């Protein structure tokens, strides 16, 4: 194992991307993800890579499209308002079936919002912009997991020819933790579809999201969704925490999952059997373990830094068989373990398990 180093979340994402073989970064600085851009600016030129601070987010995402079409691993990163600007390009990437790795270190919104941490882009990340398409969304809860999910993100993007988005928040981006930079196996893929020169040996590869024939465009969508089915079947990631005997199930991702773990410890001291299902992939969403949990738990509580954007996904996954409450703070405020404890008590009453 490599000797550990002390890194900020934003830096760790950048270093992990380099480990994954990414040598092309296009971005535009924005708080609270700027350290990622700054790290790439320092490191990439020394590795014969390309770091380019684009004139805008729009330009950056279109540069990503170009490099991805040429078959290279490429990424961009931003924070909430900047991701909105990249939205058009994300849809074009999907329409072209191009892999890309995109990072959103979320801040409070809507609009210009603020620079403090938030998870209010859950809808945007899991639903996307225009057109029928999906994005693989990875939600780390530690600096170490930011490393492993960045490496995994590049792999999944190439494997399924789609965008993998790392959805972090300002706290995770800025916090420093010891990390081990072991490259778990870096998995790469042949890209026979890439537009990187025919060498006069094959016909041109054409990469395009425009179709003039409705039936053809429909067929592209159907083919793409067959691939999405495989992703849903094979790539769901989640963590079950103290769920063996749980009667109250917290559902939380990212930094709020860590707050939730503290609250679960408090609840258990008081004799309340709380546990957590932590989605690591927000799409594909861990529907099966949530549905299975309805057999034993009395209520679910989503813990989020938004207005409860994940509630509907939990209700759908659990077929509304149990009440789904939410414990939320927003605008850049992190819920405290006390906030979560309050919600757990309320769930106990609702679920008929008041102690």
């Amino acid at each position, binding site marked *: 194992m490599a000797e550990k180093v*002390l890194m900020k979340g934003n830096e760790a994402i950048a270093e992990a991307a380099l480990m994954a073989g990414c040598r092309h970064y296009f971005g535009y600085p924005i708080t609270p993800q700027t350290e990622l851009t700054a790290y790439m600016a320092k490191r990439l030129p020394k590795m014969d890579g390309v770091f380019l601070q684009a004139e805008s987010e729009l330009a950056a995402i279109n540069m990503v499209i170009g490099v991805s079409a040429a078959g290279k691993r490429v990424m961009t990163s931003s924070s909430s308002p900047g991701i909105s600007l990249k939205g058009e390009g994300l849809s074009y990437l999907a329409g072209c079936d191009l892999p890309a790795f995109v990072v959103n270190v979320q801040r409070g919104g809507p609009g210009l919002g603020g620079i403090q941490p938030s998870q209010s882009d859950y809808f945007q990340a899991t639903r996307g912009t225009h057109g029928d398409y999906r994005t693989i969304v990875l939600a780390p809860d530690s600096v170490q997991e930011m490393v492993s999910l960045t490496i995994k993100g590049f792999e999944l993007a190439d494997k399924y020819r789609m965008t993998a988005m790392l959805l972090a928040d300002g706290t995770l981006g800025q916090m420093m933790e*010891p990390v081990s930079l072991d490259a778990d196996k870096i998995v790469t893929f042949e890209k026979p579809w890439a537009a990187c020169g025919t060498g006069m040996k094959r016909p041109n590869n054409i990469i395009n999201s425009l179709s003039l024939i409705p039936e053809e465009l429909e067929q592209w969508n159907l083919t793409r969704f067959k691939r999405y089915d495989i992703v849903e079947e094979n790539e769901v990631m989640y963590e079950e925490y103290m769920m063996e005997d749980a009667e109250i199930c917290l559902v939380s991702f990212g930094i709020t999952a860590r707050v939730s773990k503290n609250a679960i410890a408090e609840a258990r001291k008081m004799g309340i059997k709380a546990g957590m299902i932590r989605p690591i992939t927000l799409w594909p969403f861990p529907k099966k373990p949530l549905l299975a949990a309805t057999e034993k738990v009395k209520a679910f509580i989503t813990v989020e830094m938004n207005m409860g954007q994940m509630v509907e996904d939990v209700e759908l996954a659990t077929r509304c068989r149990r009440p789904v409450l939410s414990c939320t703070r927003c605008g850049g405020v992190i819920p405290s373990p006390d906030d979560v404890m309050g919600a757990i008590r309320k769930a106990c009453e609702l679920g008929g398990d008041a102690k």
Partner: protein
Amino acid sequence: MAEKRITLFAGHYGSGKTNIAVNYALALKKQREYLMLADLDIVNPYYRAKDSARELEAQGIRVISSFFANSNVDLPALPQDIYAITDDRRYTCVLDVGGDDRGALALGRLVPAIREEGDYEMLLVVNRFRPLTRDAQSVREVVEEIETACRLPFTGIVNNSNLGIETTPEDVLGSLGYAREVSRLCGIPVKMTTIEENLLPALQGKVPDLFPMKLQKRPTE
């Protein structure tokens, strides 16, 4: 502790400057009536000396910080009070400078007055567990970049090698050679080794000029 009127902490981004500056100011207050901590960071909008303002002010330490620090606004502006650092010589001053050359740039406006007075210590904070300053050569590059940006030469090194909560006494002992190598290559003496206070029993007597600290946190954590 400080013999000079102004002590500046500068260095690589994330090397621990803010935590050291706050702890240093708290320790120094026991010897000084007029003490000031100035937060000159215009780079990092999160994790600021201002997080510890309440504790510092309770000890009678004057805290100078951006009005916008820790707010929802990312404005790299410094308050006019920073001129008190050089104008009001009653005060012993501890300066928390922003990371890397980008952060040190903001110091430039104070440097002519600091140099003219000549009563300062410019300390380089290093951590060998930070990936971009793992060897002496990389530290030297950072030193050159910072000195070019702020036009003030370093006079000492603070070895703050740590792995956060996972730091062991062996990590600290193992970093002493690194600090010496940085010292040799940059021509700057090592002035102190900073550690989390829980490591003090294991390291006391084994490391010269040890400075134990309490980890400063954001009030919300």
